[in-house]
């Protein structure tokens, strides 16, 4: 087996941080190579250099035997490198074929292109109707658009950045079948992920990055997931622990909650009914965009509903705004840290005030007590080990993980009666994620009811007592989390989206 891409000593520094430090590895012909590392380990920077989006400070690459120095993605594509990004660049208002045509230098007629898309989609088992509007597609289907867009270029190397974060387990299987087929045809794949089991089942070789440096290589099939995790994190992982508790009174109840989404391509909530008891953690899974944001907003009070649709400790609060709900003990943590959970340009003290003003006594008859706000911010920083120069630092200057610890900590430390969080450990390193999960479990042990909305199934299995999934704004049946199989979870999440098209 020959070598397709040789990477020698790539280095890239940004002000204040070395994103990649002397990284070298090879990808062979027809090899599926995993790039493994925590958030912030430098995976994205590395693939951006391969794809010509970022120019390395030092080091060189050899592609197919000749020197490879792409100065822009077009050059990379011309050499046979294609990439599927984590965030899609598709236009909702155009159909699939039109979207694919937009990415091409000389697109054929739409009819011809649609035919091509159909034949590639059949050949690789990726069901997709070229005439559908992208705005109506699920996240998994959108990803197929991006993959097919790449496959039409006949790439020699396909780069995939965290492709499974938006897929149900069944969709992951379809994707893997496609990738294996590509590999059999001799296409090399660079597969970026931090999901260890996936890598073990798919990849031939793995390069592990930590803090910008290559810390090891392994053959994923031959090592355990725990061994890879240790290489990735650099220390042994602390697993959250909990004691089995008997659930108490119903604290949060949703009854037939139906609200329209405020945004055009959002998902409306349809007849959601659930109960969460004191001491219980309810895990809600779902592929992104199936009503998670709307559910959080309906609980935080940003979207109002009929008063009886949401009740807290028996009191109907569906028509009450965020301040009133917070006063009664219903606290929430939205997914988007910058701009929603926190104001980017404001200091941590001001951000502590953002939700804590009333419950933490930082305000008397409307006047602010800055000293108390500063103390509260300092207390959060201390307890959740937030790495920051101090309380007067702007929120946007913190790394994603540190800010996440701060905004979750801010809610946890206000002793909520009910806590609802959306993607509590998204983009957070493993150690910080463990801290956050432990805090959530401790809250439940103390008698609070907790709802965790997440796309990370491992996380949900770890913390939840009961489990349900959101699918197109509807809630599945709620089942005890213990003993659920991946198969069952996948079906709760809606199985495979858009499969009917393939058989049509």
């Amino acid at each position, binding site marked *: 087996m020959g070598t397709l891409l040789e990477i020698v000593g790539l280095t890239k520094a940004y002000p204040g941080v070395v994103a990649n430090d002397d990284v070298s590895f090879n990808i062979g012909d027809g090899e599926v190579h995993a790039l493994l590392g925590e958030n912030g380990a430098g995976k994205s920077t590395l693939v951006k250099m391969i794809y010509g989006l970022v*120019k390395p400070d030092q080091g060189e690459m050899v592609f197919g035997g000749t020197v490879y120095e792409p100065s822009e993605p077009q050059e990379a594509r011309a050499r046979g490198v294609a990439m599927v990004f984590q965030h899609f660049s598709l236009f909702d208002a155009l159909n699939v074929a039109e979207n694919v045509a937009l990415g091409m230098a000389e697109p054929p007629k739409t009819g011809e292109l649609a035919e091509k898309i159909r034949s590639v989609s059949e050949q690789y088992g990726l069901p997709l109707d070229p005439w559908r509007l992208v705005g109506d597609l699920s996240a998994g289907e959108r990803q197929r658009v991006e993959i097919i867009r790449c496959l039409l270029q006949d790439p020699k190397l396909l780069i995939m950045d965290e492709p499974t974060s938006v897929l149900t387990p069944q969709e992951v299987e379809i994707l893997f079948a496609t990738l294996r087929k590509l590999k059999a045809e001799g296409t090399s794949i660079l597969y970026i992920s931090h999901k260890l089991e996936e890598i073990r089942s798919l990849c031939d070789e793995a390069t592990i990055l930590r803090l910008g440096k290559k810390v090891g290589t392994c053959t994923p099939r031959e090592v355990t997931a725990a061994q890879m995790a240790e290489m990735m994190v650099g220390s042994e992982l602390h697993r959250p622990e909990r004691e089995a508790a008997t659930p108490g009174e119903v604290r949060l109840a949703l009854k037939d909650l139906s609200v329209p989404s405020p945004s055009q391509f959002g998902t409306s909530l349809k007849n959601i009914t659930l109960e969460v008891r004191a001491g219980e953690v309810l895990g809600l899974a779902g592929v992104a965009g199936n009503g998670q944001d709307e559910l959080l907003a309906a609980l*935080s009070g940003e979207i109002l509903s009929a008063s009886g649709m949401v009740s807290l400790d028996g009191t109907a609060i569906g028509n009450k705004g965020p301040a*009133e709900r*917070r006063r009664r003990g219903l606290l*929430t943590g939205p997914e988007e840290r910058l*701009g929603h959970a926190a104001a980017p340009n404001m200091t941590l003290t001001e951000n502590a005030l953002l939700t804590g003003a009333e419950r933490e006594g930082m305000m008397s008859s*409307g*006047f*602010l007590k800055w000293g108390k706000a500063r103390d509260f911010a300092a207390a959060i920083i201390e307890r959740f080990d937030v790495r920051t120069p101090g309380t007067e630092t*702007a929120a946007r200057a913190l790394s994603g993980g540190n800010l996440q610890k701060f905004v979750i900590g801010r809610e946890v430390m206000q002793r909520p009666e009910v806590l609802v969080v959306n993607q509590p450990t998204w983009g957070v390193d493993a150690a910080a994620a463990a801290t956050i999960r432990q805090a959530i479990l401790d809250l439940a042990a103390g008698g609070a009811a907790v709802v965790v909305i997440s796309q990370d199934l491992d996380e949900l299995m770890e913390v939840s007592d009961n489990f349900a999934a959101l699918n197109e704004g509807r809630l599945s049946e709620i089942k005890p989390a213990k003993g659920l199989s991946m198969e069952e979870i996948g079906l709760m999440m809606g199985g495979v989206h858009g499969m009917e098209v393939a058989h049509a």
Partner: protein
Amino acid sequence: MIYLEKRPQPAKALSYFTPVLAVLITMVAGGLLFAVLGKNPVEAIRTIFWDPVFGEFAFYYRPQLLVKGGPLILIALGLSLGFKAGIWNIGAEGQYIMGAVAGAGVALALYPLEAWWIFPLMIIAGALGGWAWAMIPALLKVKFGTNEILVSLMLVYVAENFLKAMAIGAMKNPEGFGFPGSRNLQQYPSAHNTEVIAGSGMHWGVAAAFIAAIMGYILLNRHMLGFQIRLTGEAPRAARFSGVNPGRLVLFCMGTAGALAGLAGMFEVAGPAGQITTGFNVGYGFTAIIVAFLGRLHPFGIVLAGLLMALTYIGGEAAQSTMQLPAAAIQVFQGMLLFFLLAVDVLTNYRIRITLGEAA
């Protein structure tokens, strides 16, 4: 290649320095403009910036600084609240007119009664007049989602025509020999906005402006409402999450701006102007927008910026009369100030990097 790189934190010190830098650049560019017009640039700049404060006739100009600065500061303080929250009230000129008409209306209706409560009543009427005029765009925005920029701006022209109708109609001086314009309130002791300290130029409106600056500072830095205003401007979604009611905030910010502009108009008509005339308004409501930004939307900054802007007015007039500079050149000069301020503002959030060779 020159390109901009975002700073991890906005540079605090620079945000105080950029207004000074903007003033300096304006002087240079303004000097060039005057030179092209065939005037001596150094003399023009000196006439505008130096002479009114330290020159031979400073005793006359200095009180004028407060007279012109007072209404600018008062209006700009109100506007700054909305601007901080991303609510763009461009119609302060109209609110200023309506405040003046309401205040003068009270006085003219009571004339020739003499009583201590007339002036306080005029203050209330003036504030209410401006408030009510600002409530029109505010309510339309909250109820129907209209654009407050357009509605408030259009209402300026309505207010101007209303003013003209008053000056030649209902409020016309019956003893004025048919000339347009109301009675002169300076000759109506109970309604006259007198100087707090005689000869200083400091009338009650200027006093009100300084009080408003202090209250604005307290509101923004020590009160929840001020925090909510800043939060809404910084991150509207986070503000909603925090529990801010955006509609109520629009009503508060527009209402306060309208009331302060109305007050400014009332103090003006009862003091320096004296009467309702067809040309009563001279653009304070628009200039105050520049003042608000030049003052960094900070209450004390606005006080300084208001005085600086008053200086360009007074110095500009002096330059017109002594150097025959066209009035339009002075307006361009004032516009440059805002333009350069916004331009150098980039430096607080970005730093300039110059690299040789191609861009990465």
